[in-house]
């Protein structure tokens, strides 16, 4: 069975500083990996995803994540955060099995708090 670990429940950071949110997964098969973001009082939105090909994937608002198969990690990074990046971030994994469901397994989330 697949599982996702987000070790940091909260990450405080000053505006314009770099940040890394860590995500490790376990699975016995090939996986698809996702990062979702949840702004206050909203549902989750997809931030970026890794399906295949280049191990470095980017979002339109400056976040990037790198798939590392040997370390089973998919850490999220941003070189310079903005106050508007304050949100909760969830890492998720799909085992990519065909057939019914397409289930995702989510981590417990990391609350990113950007301070002035």
């Amino acid at each position: 069975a697949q599982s996702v670990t987000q070790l940091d429940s909260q990450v405080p950071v000053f505006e314009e500083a770099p940040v890394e949110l860590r995500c490790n997964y376990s699975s016995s098969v090939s996986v698809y990996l996702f990062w979702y973001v949840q702004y206050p009082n909203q549902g989750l939105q997809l931030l970026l995803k890794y399906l295949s090909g280049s191990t470095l994937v980017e979002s339109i608002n400056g976040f990037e994540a790198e798939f590392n198969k040997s370390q089973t990690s998919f850490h999220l990074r941003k070189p310079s955060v903005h106050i508007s990046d304050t949100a909760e971030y969830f890492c998720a994994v799909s085992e990519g099995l065909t057939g019914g469901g397409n289930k995702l397994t989510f981590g417990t989330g990391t609350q990113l708090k950007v301070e002035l």
Partner: protein
Amino acid sequence: DVKVTQSSRYLVKRTGEKVFLECVQDMDHENMFWYRQDPGLGLRLIYFSYDVKMKEKGDIPEGYSVSREKKERFSLILESASTNQTSMYLCASSLGTPSYEQYFGPGTRLTVT
């Protein structure tokens, strides 16, 4: 744009009441999901459906049931609400291919008193 709507943003119910949470998606997605979100626990899958009238249990189905009579609508039912079901409930939908992301509704914050 894909749109997933949920019937209520906030709901307050009494212990023992039957509660219906409804979710509608407008993109002809095959898959629909119900999660509950609790602080420190992330999202946990309650039930999902990959076709009309089809349903499968997720990780925490106890105390819940679901109904999917039409492709666009997926209902979560609490047969007899209890205080430990106070939570944020999120609905999501996706296409049938495994690589396709899930689209989420805004959530329903349910309080059972």
